[in-house]
Structure formats: structure tokens, C-alpha cells
């Protein structure tokens, strides 16, 4: 029997992986296993055949091509169908520092035996043998920061929750991942769900929580199914529920599904939604760590934040802390998206430059045309020109440049992009997804669309540019959360770096950077948490 892997990840399925799996299952002498995706999404469906040399990869396989590939010797690792050789040795993959994604694409997602065989549950085993306070300190020392966008130190948040007393405490995982250009949360949940479950259980043990919720957006049905299945399996193996592995720690974990509202990724809106209400943002303080779900102390962390925790506990804070630059410690799971030749997951230590990611790992644009702009950090992130490709991926360096790392999504655009159109879209998106609680965001975004339309049409351009500037300032300063507070970021960065698209003279060098008002970049740090 030859073992053949066909990814079950949604991105692979979206380009035909299920049909490929069915075609292979019909061939004699093959055991088909469904792995997650390696993250080399431009190669999907990437079929892997297990051989003495390692797992040999066949890219972009289609169901009708299976017979020919098999006849050509694919099952012996033969050189057919654009074979990429041993997948682990692909320079694109071998050059990465896979920590959070170490198992994704390698194992069958819901095989708990494979999970443990690949180092799974080592972190929780160690945590359970430690005093909860020591676990919190280990996470503090690792320097891991929130991956959901704000970059707040996770350990400090945990310390606050641990120090609070209440009848019940919660751990909530933010799996709303609404940012365009991001898919790492989805791929971890679909490809290695036990990592998230383990991370949440460590958090529960550390802060004294007994109940947890994963809030997954409804656009991710496969992640919901895989997570539910993994939770069932974890219960059956004594990794969830009463007295986990005979310890004094008990933890129940539930999945909740969002309902198509981007704002529910904002943590207080998510908590409202989990409680069964409209996803309207709550004013802070009180902070969720003290007054969170149902008013109880609550850890709210992103999927990747919690997903980094098992490794931190397994290998110690020092190993994690040793990676990265400045105050950005560890690895970041970057996501290359949009008009990019080699789109997918690139996990590297913080500090890699934007250019190395886009031009190196990404291989430039899919269309082969020059890169004109990239948007980093989702729909509320800045648009940057290739002149800024030497920026290191580092929270502080990005803030300084009037941008944000956010959830690590990088969306690439070629030179056909209309940046005034993208600025308009940022306002349109804000108008569509605003929770409606405050006026600058709810009304300002609609006005923003109209003003940009007038600028594009050349109607009283100078006057309307001043109006747009005022509007952006009002939104930045007067919004309750970063939805309204950061929407000016893509708008103003587009205007600063690509003024010619708005009918203005082109930007030159320094002038572009000065055109981004300081308060806007300062607000980013303040409002996104």
C-alpha cells in the first residue's frame, strides 16, 4: 500500500481537492489520507506520495489527470506532472521557521495519535505539572503578543485574569478572522485543531478558568466542523472535561458560530455576540480581562496567540523569546494574498522585511506586472508602495512608518490598481460593517464615500480634499473603536503614497511620509486593542 496525502483544507478543496481524493481512492493499492495544507496555496491541490526519500509533491493535480500521473509512476515518486520533489526540501518551505504551523499540512488534522507523535500535548503536560502562576509567568517571559491585531502582551492579560476572583472565569478564542488577506486562523483550525485546544486549555489552567468558547465566523464552515470533531476527540481522550489527565484542572470547551458581521472580531463586540446580543462594541474600561463574558474575568485571545502557547510551554519561554526583533518576539504567520504569484502561509521570525516576503517568498505578482501597492494588516491597515519594502516586520517599525502589522496579512496589487478606488472601498466597507454605535464611524464613512467620489470626479477637488482630511481626523479621534478609528489609515495612506490616482501631482520621497498625519498613526496603537 502506498500512502498518498490530499489536503482537506478549504483552499485546496476550492480548487478541486475533494475530486482528486475520490479519483485516487478509486486506484488500487493506495491509502488516501487527508492532511491540512502546507500553505503553498498556489500549488494546490498539492498531492504528496510517501516514499523512502520522503513525501514527494505533485502540484495542481486535477481529478482527470490522476490516471495519467499514476501511469507515469507517481506512486513511486516518479518525475511526472511537474513533480516538485521532496516537499520538506522545497526552498520556499525549508527556508521558513515553522513553529505554530509545524504540524499543519503534515498530519491528519483530527488524528490525536499523530498530534501526540508530532510533539502535541507536551506543553499542556508540562503546564499541568506547574503552578498556574508559573505558567502565566512563562507566557509573560516569552514576550508573545496578541496576534489579533493590537499586539498586546498575552502574559500581562493572563496575569490580570489570574489575579481576579469570580465564581467562573472564561477563555474565549477570537476566531472571527474577518480581515481580507488573512487565513492563518482558518488554516490552523482546519489543519491542526488540537494545537488551539491545547493552547486554550493551558490558558484555562493558568488563569483558573473552567469554561471556554471559540467564536468562529460563519464563513468558515469547515473550520467549525473540524474544531467540533477535534473537541469531541479531546473529550474522549481525557484532554477536555473534568480533571484533565487526572489533574485538578477541569475545562469545558464550546464552539460558537458568528453570523456575518465583521465588527464581531472586535473583542467586546464578540463578547456581546457570544452573550446573544447585537454585536455592538462596549466602551472600555471595564476591560474584558476583569469584566468580560457575562461580566466575568475573561481571557480573549486570537487563534494564533493561543496557538503559540503550547510550543512556549513545551520548549520554554527562552526558546520563543530568542526569536524575533525588538519587542516583537517569536514568529509571525504571514499570509500572502491578492495578486501574488506564490500566495500562502509564510511563518518566519519577526524582522523579515516586507520585500523579502512579497518579492522573495511571494515571487511578485500573479499577473507578472510590477507591484504597485501592498496592504498590510487587513482592511484597516495602510497601503504601502514598494519603496517601503525594506521595512522589517515588527510592530513598532510599522507604527513608526504609519502602518500596522495587524494579523500579518499582506495583500498585493499590481500597477493596474486604482488607489482612489481602494480608498473609496475602505470607506464603503466601514459604512457596511459599522456597528452603528458612534456617529463618526456610522455617518462619517458614508460621507467619506461621497467625498472621495467627488474628488475622483474632479468636483471642487481642493475643497473636497480638505473635507476628506477633516472627516478622517474626526473618525480617528471620535470613534469608540478601531473600525471607525482606523478606516482613515488605508484612505490617508493611499492619498499620501498615490496622490496621482486622486488627480493630484505624484508624491516624491519624503513628502509622501509627511502627508500621513501623526495623530493617525498614534491612534492606531491606542484604539485597536
Amino acid at each position: 500500500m502506498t500512502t498518498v496525502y490530499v489536503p482537506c483544507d478549504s483552499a485546496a478543496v476550492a480548487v478541486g481537492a475533494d475530486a482528486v481524493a475520490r479519483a485516487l481512492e478509486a486506484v488500487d493499492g493506495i491509502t488516501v489520507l487527508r492532511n491540512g495544507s502546507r500553505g503553498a496555496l498556489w500549488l494546490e491541490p498539492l498531492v504528496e506520495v510517501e516514499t523512502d526519500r520522503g513525501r514527494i509533491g505533485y502540484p495542481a493535480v486535477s481529478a482527470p489527470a490522476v490516471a495519467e500521473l499514476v501511469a507515469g509512476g507517481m506512486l513511486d515518486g516518479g518525475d511526472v506532472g511537474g513533480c516538485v520533489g521532496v516537499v520538506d526540501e522545497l526552498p520556499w518551505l525549508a527556508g521558513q521557521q515553522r513553529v505554530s504551523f509545524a504540524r499543519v499540512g503534515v498530519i491528519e488534522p483530527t488524528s490525536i495519535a499523530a498530534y501526540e507523535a508530532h510533539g502535541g500535548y507536551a506543553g499542556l503536560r508540562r503546564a499541568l505539572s506547574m503552578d498556574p502562576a508559573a505558567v502565566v509567568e512563562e507566557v509573560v517571559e516569552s514576550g508573545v503578543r496578541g496576534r489579533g491585531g493590537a499586539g498586546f502582551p498575552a502574559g500581562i492579560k493572563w496575569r490580570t485574569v489570574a489575579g481576579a476572583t469570580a465564581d467562573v472565569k472564561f477563555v474565549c478564542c477570537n476566531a472571527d478572522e474577518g480581515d481580507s488577506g488573512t487565513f492563518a486562523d482558518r488554516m490552523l483550525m482546519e489543519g491542526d485543531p488540537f494545537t488551539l485546544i491545547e493552547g486554550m486549555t493551558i490558558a484555562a489552567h493558568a488563569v483558573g478558568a473552567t469554561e471556554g468558547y471559540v467564536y468562529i465566523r460563519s464563513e468558515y464552515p469547515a473550520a467549525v466542523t473540524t474544531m467540533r470533531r477535534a473537541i469531541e476527540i479531546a473529550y474522549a481522550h481525557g484532554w477536555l472535561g473534568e480533571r484533565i489527565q487526572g489533574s485538578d484542572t477541569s475545562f469545558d470547551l464550546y464552539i460558537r458560530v458568528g453570523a456575518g458581521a465583521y465588527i464581531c472580531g472586535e473583542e467586546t463586540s464578540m463578547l456581546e455576540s457570544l452573550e446573544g446580543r447585537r454585536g455592538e462594541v462596549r466602551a472600555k474600561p471595564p476591560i474584558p480581562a476583569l469584566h468580560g463574558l457575562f461580566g466575568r474575568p475573561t481571557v480573549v485571545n486570537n487563534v494564533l496567540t493561543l496557538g503559540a502557547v503550547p510550543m512556549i510551554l513545551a520548549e520554554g519561554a527562552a526558546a520563543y523569546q530568542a526569536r524575533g526583533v525588538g519587542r516583537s518576539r517569536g514568529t509571525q504567520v504571514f499570509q500572502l494574498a491578492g495578486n501574488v504569484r506564490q500566495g500562502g502561509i509564510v511563518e518566519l521570525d519577526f524582522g523579515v522585511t516586507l520585500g523579502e516576503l512579497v518579492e522573495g517568498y511571494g515571487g511578485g505578482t500573479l499577473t507578472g506586472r510590477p507591484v504597485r501597492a501592498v496592504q498590510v494588516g487587513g482592511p484597516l491597515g495602510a497601503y504601502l508602495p514598494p519603496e517601503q519594502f525594506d521595512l522589517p516586520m515588527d510592530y513598532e517599525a510599522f507604527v513608526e512608518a504609519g502602518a500596522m502589522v495587524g494579523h500579518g496579512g499582506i495583500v498585493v496589487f499590481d500597477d493596474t490598481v486604482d488607489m482612489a478606488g481602494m480608498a473609496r472601498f475602505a470607506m464603503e466597507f466601514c459604512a457596511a460593517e459599522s456597528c452603528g454605535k458612534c456617529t463618526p464611524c456610522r455617518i462619517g464613512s458614508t460621507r467619506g464615500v461621497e467625498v472621495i467620489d467627488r474628488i475622483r470626479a474632479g468636483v471642487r477637488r481642493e475643497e473636497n480634499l480638505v473635507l476628506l482630511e477633516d472627516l478622517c481626523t474626526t473618525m480617528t479621534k471620535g470613534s469608540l473603536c478601531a473600525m471607525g478609528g482606523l478606516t482613515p489609515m488605508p484612505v490617508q495612506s493611499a492619498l499620501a503614497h498615490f496622490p496621482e490616482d486622486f488627480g493630484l501631482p505624484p508624491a516624491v520621497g519624503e513628502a509622501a511620509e509627511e502627508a500621513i498625519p501623526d495623530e493617525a498613526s498614534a491612534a492606531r496603537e491606542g484604539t485597536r486593542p
Partner: protein
Amino acid sequence: MRQRGFAAPAPPPPMDSQRAAAVRAIAERHAGSRGPLLPILHAVVEELGHVAEEDVATIADVLNLSRADVHGVVTFYHDFRRTPPVAHRVELCRAEACQAVGAQAVFDAVTQRYAGDEDVEIGQVFCFGNCALGPSGTIDGRLRGRLTAELVDAELEASR
């Protein structure tokens, strides 16, 4: 559950039609869990196709909420459709990463093509998490990448 907004008039005594009985059964199934309203509304849409006006009173009754509260939640979220579903639904991503590879043109072509077709409903979504293989969309719930208007046609044909 905290009261929000104005107080709705007391609901009329529930006179359970067949639909109301089904909704009540769904609501009661989830009533014991924390924050049950979203799971209930999801289940109603999944099992009965949409959230009808009359369902609001039934759910409010089971959860001991005001009808205004439940109505407010139903209308806040895109997923809780209030009209019966049509035979086929296409959802196309209009977010940035898909726009970078021509999603807007696909969206325009598809909406135009099915404008008069009562069996096909076209909706917009902001991101499916398939942003490296856009334009993305779903056809009757099946996620597809590298979409073109022609591929949407072919997928719909396969569904019909």
C-alpha cells in the same frame, strides 16, 4: 439577558402553528446553554430556511426576552435571512485581496447575468479566507477559488 431599547408590547399568547412548534422545539433545545440566541437563530435558518416575523415571538417567549430584543439581534446580523431562500445562492467575495485579482469584474458580470433569474440569488461577502486563490465565492455553499463568471455558470449548472 439585559433589556435593550424600548419595551415591546406583551406577546400574544402563543398559538403554535406547525412552524411555531418547530421553532419552539429548536429554541428549547438550546435554551439551557449560555447565550443561546445566536445558536437558535442559526438552527432556524438551517432547518427552516429563514427567520420569519412570527418566529421572533416564539423565540422571545422561550428565552423570556422581549420581541424587540430578538428582532434587534435578527436584523443586526447578515446571516439571519428574513425571506425564504431561493433555489440557488451564489456568494461572491468583494474584499481587497479578491479585488486585486479582478473580483469586481466577476461580481458585475454575474449579477448582470442572473438579474432576472428568480432561481438564483447573488450575494456579496467580505472574505472567505481564501485570499491567495481569489476571486473566491460559494455556489450553494461550495467554496471555489480562481472564479470566473463562466465557472460560476458551470457550477450553477451542476447544481440545477
